[in-house]
């Protein structure tokens, strides 16, 4: 491959690289997480690192930040070899890290969070006033505006991320590593983040961006490295590559990035939701009058930044509203009202009524991680008569069924005795998808079907969802991945703060318009779109 490891052969340039890795290897027991990694990131550039889950990106960055010690290899920062034993060493060397899950104290103010760990002296006041000045300057220079006295838990996710960046800059970071920074952001917030990053680059800072979103790589990075199975398979200039090529490098084979599907042929209404409201145990109104319809043979996508009520909607429809919450409104499936409270409101009853559910969090809900694959295939349907009569379960019947599902859904390794925990994210999800789809539900609830799933499996799962639609089933798809919503849905409803902000047709809207709706801006007062068009784009 022409692109293969260009950096390795490159002669030493005059200016030392901001970061250079030479032959880094790291194994966890029998798993080789990183194998002979060479990487060179030039000063003042934005360098992307992409790869599927488990490709070794996070391990590599953890080595760089001193969380793990490499088994072999050398790290050069600014041209000088450096042994990074802990994060303090990394910080002193000018490396800052913005984690996917923020490391902030929620009930501290922005200022307090920024100085946490670098307080100078016994009294806080001098440090705080110094930090206030620095923050002011940083805000002006890089569009990093945050109220220094705001309490972090009251800030939006986008602002919390800015606090993380400010923390790194306050510690004089020259090299900023961001791990999946846009996963929790609206498109507008992501755009803002990218502007900040560009500003930082212009000031000579070096940025390493870890992501699995090809679009972002193409949009903002100067150079990009691709990891696959612990190895660095390519480092190329972004301008010289294409999303298709990167996807192929990541997966190791050709991938269809776009979902192939025929226009929907919607039939009779399957799910009808009217004025659905939910107040959670702490008295916060999570759903504020949701109204939705989904017809047979149709995929309704719900776009929205996570935390705007999608989880609550799925849980209520799935039959297990949050403990202590109050739910009101009306939900009908195939014309029959679903009980929203009381004894009839449970997930087993929902399944009997033909509602399947691929939950948002497969590890916490969809699977029992310590159970074997075959037990997980029965999970939720363990009362089904084909899995045995009477109080005992027919293990042979379940295993036969599981083996079939594993084969048809290409779960790897095809070992139905293996615990769910030991499958990769994509294969775990395939087990859940196989279980729910093969029950042939009239209505399938899907939450984040491809979160943490590798590209190859995404393609497969999307195909199965479209097949189910074509078989005349109704599908409710919740995803924070706008690309996924745009390519899978026949209709898109945008959720913000417990409300449906509007419905759009994927062919007649843009990510920009959806982004505004996701941020709660009802930009245009245009009449609602025709809900069931004769033709889709």
């Amino acid at each position, binding site marked *: 491959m022409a692109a293969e490891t260009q950096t390795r052969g490159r002669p030493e340039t005059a200016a030392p690289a901001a970061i250079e890795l030479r032959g880094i290897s790291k194994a966890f*027991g*029998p798993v080789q997480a990183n194998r002979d990694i060479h990487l060179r990131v030039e000063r003042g550039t934005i360098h992307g690192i992409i790869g599927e889950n488990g490709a070794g990106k996070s391990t590599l960055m953890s080595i760089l930040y001193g969380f793990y010690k490499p088994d072999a290899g050398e790290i050069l920062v600014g041209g000088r070899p450096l042994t990074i034993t802990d994060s303090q060493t990394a910080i002193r060397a000018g490396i800052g890290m913005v984690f996917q899950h923020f490391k902030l104290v929620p009930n501290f103010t922005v200022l307090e969070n920024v100085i946490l760990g670098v307080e100078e002296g016994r009294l806080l006041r001098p440090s705080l006033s110094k930090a206030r000045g620095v923050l002011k300057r940083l805000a002006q220079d890089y569009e990093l505006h945050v109220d220094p006295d705001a309490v972090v838990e009251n800030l939006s996710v986008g602002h919390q991320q800015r606090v993380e960046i400010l923390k790194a800059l306050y510690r004089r970071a020259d090299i900023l590593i961001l791990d999946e920074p846009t996963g929790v952001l609206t498109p507008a917030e992501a755009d803002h983040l990218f502007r900040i990053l560009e500003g930082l680059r212009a000031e000579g800072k070096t940025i390493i961006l870890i992501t699995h979103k090809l679009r972002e790589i193409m949009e903002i990075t100067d150079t990009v490295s691709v990891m696959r199975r612990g190895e660095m398979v390519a480092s190329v200039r972004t301008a010289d590559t294409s999303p298709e090529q990167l996807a192929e490098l990541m997966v190791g084979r050709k991938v269809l990035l776009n979902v192939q599907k025929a226009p929907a042929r919607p039939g009779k209404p399957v799910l009808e939701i009217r004025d659905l409201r939910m107040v959670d145990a702490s008295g916060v109104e999570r759903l504020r009058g949701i109204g939705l319809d989904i017809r047979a043979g149709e995929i309704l996508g719900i776009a929205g930044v996570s935390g705007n009520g999608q989880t609550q909607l799925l849980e209520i429809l*799935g*039959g*297990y509203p949050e403990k202590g919450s109050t739910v009101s409104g009306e939900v009908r499936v195939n014309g029959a009202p679903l009980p929203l409270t009381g004894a009839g409101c*449970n*997930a*087993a*009853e*929902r*399944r009997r009524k033909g509602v399947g*559910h691929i*939950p948002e*969090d497969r590890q*916490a*809900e*969809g*699977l*029992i*991680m*310590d*159970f074997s694959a075959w*037990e997980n295939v*029965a*999970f*939720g349907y*363990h*009362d089904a008569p084909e899995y*045995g009569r009477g*109080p*005992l*379960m027919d*293990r042979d019947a379940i295993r036969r069924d599981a083996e079939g599902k594993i084969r048809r859904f290409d779960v790897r390794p095809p070992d139905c005795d293996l615990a769910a925990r*030991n499958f990769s994210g994509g294969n775990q999800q395939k087990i859940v998808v196989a279980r729910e789809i093969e029950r042939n539900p009239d209505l399938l609830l899907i939450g984040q079907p491809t979160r943490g799933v590798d590209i190859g499996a995404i393609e497969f799962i999307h195909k199965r969802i479209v097949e189910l639609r074509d078989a005349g089933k109704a599908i409710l798809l919740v995803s924070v991945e706008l690309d996924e919503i745009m390519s899978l849905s026949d209709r898109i409803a945008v959720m913000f703060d417990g409300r449906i902000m509007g419905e759009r047709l994927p062919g007649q809207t843009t990510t920009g318009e959806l982004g505004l709706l996701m941020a709660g801006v009802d930009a245009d007062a245009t009449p609602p779109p025709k809900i069931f068009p004769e033709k889709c784009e």
Partner: protein
Amino acid sequence: MTKMPKWADVILTPLISLVLAMAISALVILAIGESPMVALTTMIDGALGSSYGWGFTLYYATNFIFTGLAVMVAYHASLFNIGGEGQAAMGGLGVALVLLSLPLPHWALALPAAMIGAALFGAAWALIPAWLQAKRGSHIVITTIMFNFIAAALLNYVLVNLLRPVGSMDPASARFPDATHLPKLSDMALALGFEWGKNTPVNISFFVAVIACVLVWLLIWRSRLGFEIRAFGKSEPAALYAGINPVRITVIAMLISGGLAGLMAINNVMGEAERLVLNAVEGAGFIGIAVALMGRNHPLGVFLAALLFGFLYQGGGELALWTSIPRELIIVIQALVILFTGALDNMVRMPLERMFMALRKRGA
């Protein structure tokens, strides 16, 4: 990928832990100026060297099987039932009430009736903590241990004020009718034409305990209810997603657990004492925790661990009888075994896992 083979997990790890516990016990015995070898041979001789020793070892083991199974079933629902002591005590009350109030003509009738009484009373004693946990979120560890004290106080009251025969100075119930006395294993051996375990308390309850092991295994690993219990124990959110009712599972698992603990009374109250006395459980409820831990929450493991603790109990008694090693030291030895096999499990497990991984790597 599993880190080490199953046999290493279930046999090697507890065995090494046991050897370590023995080694430290030996050091302690040395430190007080006694011979560890003499101590060990005394224990083995006393507990396993004769049918008499076996008779006592198996009698204690029967108690521990019931309480171990009780802890185990609750554990699979992620409930830590440390109220076995109280539940077993209440089981004793159940047995006493059944046997003293119903005119049962034969032990074959009395046994099932007493079992129902024992299980019902034990289960009832677990029901309140279970209900509080399921509905109010009151932690089951706190409530079950408090219920141990309540059970002890209640039993005290009942024995002194209600069940004590008129004129008796002893806080104990009247003797159970002769017809309800359970056959001892020694009697059964005699009927088969040989002499075994003469004058030992081990009785037919031992077989009931073995059957209970099999039934619990069926329940946990082969039944729908067991599937739900295990699923709930592993992940409550997942159980909700699957339509498993947490309240129902919490209550049912605790009822079964309490029932099993209560069943112990057919051994110690009905089989041995043949009347209800104060403090009949003698700590077996707590030993059940160690037995379940060491038995890796599997009925076969519980059975083996119960035998081990039966041996420690009987051997320890012999030690106090025949050597100058003080009785307290036996408790030290038992505590060391619990410490190593239960609490310090990972200390042995993790190096073993590393060793097996290294071996595999070399093999690959």
